[in-house]
Protein backbone atom coordinates (compact mmCIF):
# COMPACT_ATOMS: atom_id res chain seq x y z
CA UNK A 1 0.00 0.00 0.00
CA UNK A 2 1.32 3.45 -0.86
CA UNK A 3 0.05 6.88 0.06
CA UNK A 4 0.69 9.79 -2.25
CA UNK A 5 0.17 13.40 -1.52
CA UNK A 6 -0.12 15.91 -4.33
CA UNK A 7 2.19 18.34 -2.58
CA UNK A 8 5.22 16.14 -2.20
CA UNK A 9 4.58 14.28 -5.42
CA UNK A 10 5.26 17.39 -7.50
CA UNK A 11 8.91 16.39 -7.49
CA UNK A 12 8.08 13.10 -9.13
CA UNK A 13 8.74 13.17 -12.91
CA UNK A 14 5.59 11.29 -13.86
CA UNK A 15 3.45 13.39 -11.67
CA UNK A 16 5.09 16.57 -12.92
CA UNK A 17 4.30 15.51 -16.48
CA UNK A 18 0.71 14.78 -15.63
CA UNK A 19 0.38 18.16 -14.08
CA UNK A 20 1.99 19.89 -17.01
CA UNK A 21 5.16 20.76 -15.13
CA UNK A 22 3.36 23.65 -13.53
CA UNK A 23 4.00 22.47 -10.04
CA UNK A 24 0.35 23.08 -9.25
CA UNK A 25 -1.15 19.82 -8.17
CA UNK A 26 -4.23 20.92 -6.33
CA UNK A 27 -7.39 18.90 -6.23
CA UNK A 28 -8.98 21.26 -8.73
CA UNK A 29 -6.81 19.86 -11.55
CA UNK A 30 -8.93 17.77 -13.88
CA UNK A 31 -6.53 14.83 -13.92
CA UNK A 32 -6.12 14.94 -10.21
CA UNK A 33 -9.89 15.06 -9.74
CA UNK A 34 -10.36 11.98 -11.85
CA UNK A 35 -7.70 10.10 -9.99
CA UNK A 36 -8.79 11.22 -6.54
CA UNK A 37 -12.54 11.42 -6.66
CA UNK A 38 -13.35 7.77 -6.80
CA UNK A 39 -13.63 5.56 -9.85
CA UNK A 40 -17.13 6.56 -10.90
CA UNK A 41 -15.90 9.03 -13.52
CA UNK A 42 -12.86 7.08 -14.56
CA UNK A 43 -14.11 3.54 -14.99
CA UNK A 44 -14.83 4.28 -18.64
CA UNK A 45 -11.58 6.07 -19.18
CA UNK A 46 -9.10 4.42 -21.54
CA UNK A 47 -6.22 4.96 -19.14
CA UNK A 48 -8.15 3.58 -16.23
CA UNK A 49 -9.21 0.49 -18.17
CA UNK A 50 -5.65 -0.15 -19.25
CA UNK A 51 -4.37 0.21 -15.73
CA UNK A 52 -6.98 -2.20 -14.50
CA UNK A 53 -6.79 -4.85 -17.20
CA UNK A 54 -3.13 -4.92 -18.28
CA UNK A 55 -1.29 -4.56 -15.01
CA UNK A 56 -1.97 -5.07 -11.34
CA UNK A 57 -5.42 -4.06 -10.16
CA UNK A 58 -5.17 -0.63 -8.56
CA UNK A 59 -7.74 0.56 -6.10
CA UNK A 60 -7.84 4.05 -4.75
CA UNK A 61 -9.29 5.54 -1.63
CA UNK A 62 -9.24 9.02 -0.18
CA UNK A 63 -9.88 12.31 -1.88
CA UNK A 64 -8.64 15.86 -2.06
CA UNK A 65 -4.90 16.23 -1.85
CA UNK A 66 -4.24 12.72 -0.56
CA UNK A 67 -4.86 9.46 -2.36
CA UNK A 68 -4.12 5.94 -1.23
CA UNK A 69 -3.34 3.34 -3.90
CA UNK A 70 -3.54 -0.35 -3.17
CA UNK A 71 -1.97 -2.64 -5.77
CA UNK A 72 -2.98 -6.27 -5.73
CA UNK A 73 -1.00 -9.08 -7.32
CA UNK A 74 -0.97 -9.19 -11.17
CA UNK A 75 -4.14 -10.48 -12.76
CA UNK A 76 -3.88 -14.00 -14.18
CA UNK A 77 -5.08 -14.23 -17.82
CA UNK A 78 -8.09 -16.44 -18.43
CA UNK A 79 -7.85 -19.67 -20.45
CA UNK A 80 -9.54 -17.93 -23.39
CA UNK A 81 -7.00 -15.07 -23.29
CA UNK A 82 -4.12 -17.54 -23.19
CA UNK A 83 -5.60 -19.42 -26.15
CA UNK A 84 -5.89 -16.19 -28.14
CA UNK A 85 -2.32 -15.23 -27.27
CA UNK A 86 -1.09 -18.63 -28.45
CA UNK A 87 -3.04 -18.31 -31.71
CA UNK A 88 -1.69 -14.82 -32.31
CA UNK A 89 1.90 -15.94 -31.67
CA UNK A 90 1.45 -18.95 -33.97
CA UNK A 91 0.08 -16.72 -36.75
CA UNK A 92 2.99 -14.29 -36.36
CA UNK A 93 5.49 -17.17 -36.49
CA UNK A 94 3.87 -18.49 -39.67
CA UNK A 95 4.01 -15.03 -41.23
CA UNK A 96 7.72 -14.69 -40.40
CA UNK A 97 8.47 -18.12 -41.88
CA UNK A 98 6.54 -17.36 -45.08
CA UNK A 99 8.35 -14.05 -45.44
CA UNK A 100 11.69 -15.78 -44.95
CA UNK A 101 10.82 -18.49 -47.52
CA UNK A 102 9.74 -15.83 -50.01
CA UNK A 103 13.03 -13.94 -49.57
CA UNK A 104 15.00 -17.16 -50.03
CA UNK A 105 13.07 -17.92 -53.24
CA UNK A 106 13.71 -14.39 -54.53
CA UNK A 107 17.43 -14.74 -53.77
CA UNK A 108 17.62 -18.06 -55.65
CA UNK A 109 15.84 -16.57 -58.67
CA UNK A 110 18.17 -13.55 -58.62
CA UNK A 111 21.27 -15.74 -58.30
CA UNK A 112 20.14 -17.90 -61.23
CA UNK A 113 19.72 -14.77 -63.36
CA UNK A 114 23.22 -13.65 -62.38
CA UNK A 115 24.64 -17.08 -63.26
CA UNK A 116 22.98 -16.90 -66.67
CA UNK A 117 24.47 -13.48 -67.29
CA UNK A 118 27.90 -14.77 -66.25
CA UNK A 119 27.51 -17.72 -68.61
CA UNK A 120 26.82 -15.27 -71.45
CA UNK A 121 30.25 -13.81 -70.73
CA UNK A 122 32.36 -16.89 -70.02
CA UNK A 123 30.58 -19.82 -71.64
CA UNK A 124 29.06 -22.97 -70.14
CA UNK A 125 32.37 -24.77 -69.40
CA UNK A 126 33.80 -22.02 -67.25
CA UNK A 127 30.43 -21.49 -65.59
CA UNK A 128 30.42 -25.15 -64.57
CA UNK A 129 33.81 -24.81 -62.90
CA UNK A 130 32.72 -21.56 -61.25
CA UNK A 131 29.61 -23.21 -59.84
CA UNK A 132 31.64 -26.15 -58.55
CA UNK A 133 34.51 -24.19 -57.05
CA UNK A 134 33.18 -20.63 -56.57
CA UNK A 135 36.35 -19.42 -58.34
CA UNK A 136 36.72 -17.45 -61.56
CA UNK A 137 40.06 -16.88 -63.27
CA UNK A 138 40.37 -13.47 -64.94
CA UNK A 139 43.26 -12.01 -66.89
CA UNK A 140 43.98 -8.35 -66.36
CA UNK A 141 46.38 -6.15 -68.35
CA UNK A 142 49.19 -6.76 -65.87
CA UNK A 143 48.16 -9.52 -63.48
CA UNK A 144 46.07 -12.66 -63.31
CA UNK A 145 43.27 -12.68 -60.75
CA UNK A 146 41.24 -15.32 -58.99
CA UNK A 147 37.81 -13.99 -58.10
CA UNK A 148 36.14 -15.88 -55.27
CA UNK A 149 32.42 -16.08 -54.58
CA UNK A 150 31.83 -14.95 -51.01
CA UNK A 151 35.48 -14.01 -50.66
CA UNK A 152 37.91 -11.38 -51.83
CA UNK A 153 39.89 -11.39 -55.09
CA UNK A 154 43.37 -12.83 -55.14
CA UNK A 155 46.17 -11.40 -57.26
CA UNK A 156 48.33 -14.19 -58.59
CA UNK A 157 52.08 -13.79 -58.77
CA UNK A 158 54.82 -16.29 -59.47
CA UNK A 159 55.48 -17.47 -55.89
CA UNK A 160 52.88 -15.66 -53.89
CA UNK A 161 49.37 -14.26 -53.92
CA UNK A 162 47.92 -11.07 -52.54
CA UNK A 163 44.35 -10.56 -51.32
CA UNK A 164 42.70 -7.36 -52.47
CA UNK A 165 39.54 -6.35 -50.66
CA UNK A 166 37.11 -4.91 -53.20
CA UNK A 167 33.41 -5.51 -53.74
CA UNK A 168 30.15 -3.88 -54.75
CA UNK A 169 28.94 -1.36 -52.17
CA UNK A 170 25.65 -3.17 -51.54
CA UNK A 171 27.16 -6.61 -52.07
CA UNK A 172 25.03 -8.51 -49.54
CA UNK A 173 21.76 -7.33 -51.04
CA UNK A 174 22.82 -8.40 -54.55
CA UNK A 175 23.28 -11.91 -55.93
CA UNK A 176 26.81 -13.11 -55.14
CA UNK A 177 27.54 -13.75 -58.81
CA UNK A 178 26.64 -10.14 -59.69
CA UNK A 179 29.56 -9.12 -57.49
CA UNK A 180 31.81 -11.47 -59.48
CA UNK A 181 30.53 -10.08 -62.80
CA UNK A 182 31.19 -6.50 -61.73
CA UNK A 183 34.73 -7.33 -60.57
CA UNK A 184 35.49 -9.33 -63.71
CA UNK A 185 34.39 -6.43 -65.91
CA UNK A 186 36.45 -3.94 -63.93
CA UNK A 187 39.61 -6.10 -63.95
CA UNK A 188 39.38 -6.49 -67.71
CA UNK A 189 38.37 -2.93 -68.54
CA UNK A 190 40.47 -0.95 -66.09
CA UNK A 191 42.82 -3.03 -63.95
CA UNK A 192 44.57 0.09 -62.67
CA UNK A 193 41.30 1.46 -61.24
CA UNK A 194 40.55 -2.00 -59.79
CA UNK A 195 43.90 -2.04 -57.99
CA UNK A 196 43.56 1.54 -56.79
CA UNK A 197 40.05 0.98 -55.45
CA UNK A 198 40.79 -2.22 -53.56
CA UNK A 199 42.54 -2.39 -50.20
CA UNK A 200 45.60 -4.61 -50.34
CA UNK A 201 45.87 -7.28 -47.67
CA UNK A 202 48.88 -9.37 -46.80
CA UNK A 203 50.91 -11.43 -49.23
CA UNK A 204 50.82 -15.20 -48.85
CA UNK A 205 53.14 -17.78 -50.29
CA UNK A 206 51.56 -20.04 -52.85
CA UNK A 207 50.95 -23.53 -51.56
CA UNK A 208 49.46 -26.71 -52.92
CA UNK A 209 45.89 -25.78 -52.01
CA UNK A 210 46.12 -22.33 -53.64
CA UNK A 211 47.81 -23.79 -56.72
CA UNK A 212 45.02 -26.31 -57.09
CA UNK A 213 42.38 -23.59 -57.03
CA UNK A 214 44.29 -21.43 -59.51
CA UNK A 215 45.04 -24.27 -61.91
CA UNK A 216 41.48 -25.57 -62.00
CA UNK A 217 40.00 -22.11 -62.65
CA UNK A 218 42.72 -21.15 -65.15
CA UNK A 219 42.29 -24.36 -67.10
CA UNK A 220 38.60 -23.59 -67.67
CA UNK A 221 39.28 -19.99 -68.75
Amino acid at each position, binding site marked *: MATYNSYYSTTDTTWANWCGDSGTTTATDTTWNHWCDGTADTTNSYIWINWCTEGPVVQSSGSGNTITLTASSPRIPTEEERRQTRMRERAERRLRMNRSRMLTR*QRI*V*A*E*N*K*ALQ*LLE*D*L*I*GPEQRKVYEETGRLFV*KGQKYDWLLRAGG*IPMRIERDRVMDL*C*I*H*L*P*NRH*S*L*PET*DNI*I*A*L*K*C*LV*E*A*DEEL*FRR*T*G*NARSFRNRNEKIDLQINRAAKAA
Partner: protein
Amino acid sequence: MGEMAVLGKEGDTKFMWDPKVDFEVDDARARFDKYIKEGYLAFHVDKEGNKAKPMKKFDPKAGKIILTPAPTGG
Protein backbone atom coordinates in the same frame (compact mmCIF):
# COMPACT_ATOMS: atom_id res chain seq x y z
CA MET B 1 19.41 -5.76 -81.15
CA GLY B 2 21.23 -3.92 -78.39
CA GLU B 3 20.98 -5.13 -74.81
CA MET B 4 21.72 -3.40 -71.54
CA ALA B 5 21.90 -5.42 -68.29
CA VAL B 6 21.72 -3.43 -65.07
CA LEU B 7 22.84 -5.34 -61.97
CA GLY B 8 20.42 -5.12 -59.06
CA LYS B 9 18.83 -6.89 -56.09
CA GLU B 10 16.64 -9.15 -58.22
CA GLY B 11 19.40 -10.10 -60.62
CA ASP B 12 20.05 -8.04 -63.72
CA THR B 13 17.30 -6.03 -65.37
CA LYS B 14 17.54 -6.08 -69.15
CA PHE B 15 16.65 -3.28 -71.56
CA MET B 16 16.71 -3.93 -75.28
CA TRP B 17 16.62 -1.68 -78.29
CA ASP B 18 16.76 -1.83 -82.04
CA PRO B 19 19.59 0.42 -83.32
CA LYS B 20 17.44 1.29 -86.32
CA VAL B 21 14.50 2.56 -84.26
CA ASP B 22 15.17 6.08 -83.04
CA PHE B 23 12.82 6.22 -80.08
CA GLU B 24 14.15 2.91 -78.72
CA VAL B 25 17.70 4.21 -79.03
CA ASP B 26 16.72 7.47 -77.30
CA ASP B 27 15.07 5.55 -74.48
CA ALA B 28 18.12 3.31 -74.02
CA ARG B 29 20.45 6.32 -74.09
CA ALA B 30 18.34 8.10 -71.44
CA ARG B 31 18.50 5.05 -69.17
CA PHE B 32 22.24 4.69 -69.73
CA ASP B 33 22.86 8.37 -68.88
CA LYS B 34 20.67 8.11 -65.78
CA TYR B 35 22.67 5.19 -64.39
CA ILE B 36 26.02 6.80 -65.22
CA LYS B 37 24.87 9.93 -63.40
CA GLU B 38 24.05 7.75 -60.38
CA GLY B 39 27.64 6.49 -60.36
CA TYR B 40 27.27 3.19 -62.19
CA LEU B 41 30.09 1.88 -64.36
CA ALA B 42 29.33 0.75 -67.90
CA PHE B 43 31.13 -2.05 -69.73
CA HIS B 44 30.87 -3.22 -73.29
CA VAL B 45 30.97 -7.02 -73.36
CA ASP B 46 30.47 -9.74 -75.95
CA LYS B 47 29.78 -13.43 -76.12
CA GLU B 48 33.03 -14.30 -77.84
CA GLY B 49 34.95 -14.20 -74.57
CA ASN B 50 36.65 -10.92 -75.36
CA LYS B 51 37.58 -8.66 -72.48
CA ALA B 52 35.11 -6.10 -71.19
CA LYS B 53 35.76 -2.53 -72.30
CA PRO B 54 34.85 0.61 -70.37
CA MET B 55 32.11 2.81 -71.81
CA LYS B 56 31.69 6.48 -71.01
CA LYS B 57 29.13 7.30 -73.68
CA PHE B 58 26.20 5.30 -74.92
CA ASP B 59 26.80 3.56 -78.22
CA PRO B 60 23.63 2.10 -79.80
CA LYS B 61 25.75 -0.33 -81.82
CA ALA B 62 27.62 -1.62 -78.75
CA GLY B 63 25.65 -4.85 -78.69
CA LYS B 64 25.74 -5.82 -75.05
CA ILE B 65 26.32 -3.43 -72.15
CA ILE B 66 26.60 -4.23 -68.46
CA LEU B 67 25.96 -1.52 -65.89
CA THR B 68 27.18 -2.14 -62.36
CA PRO B 69 27.40 -0.05 -59.21
CA ALA B 70 31.01 1.11 -58.76
CA PRO B 71 32.96 -1.33 -56.56
CA THR B 72 34.49 -0.01 -53.35
CA GLY B 73 37.46 -1.04 -51.27
CA GLY B 74 36.74 -3.22 -48.26
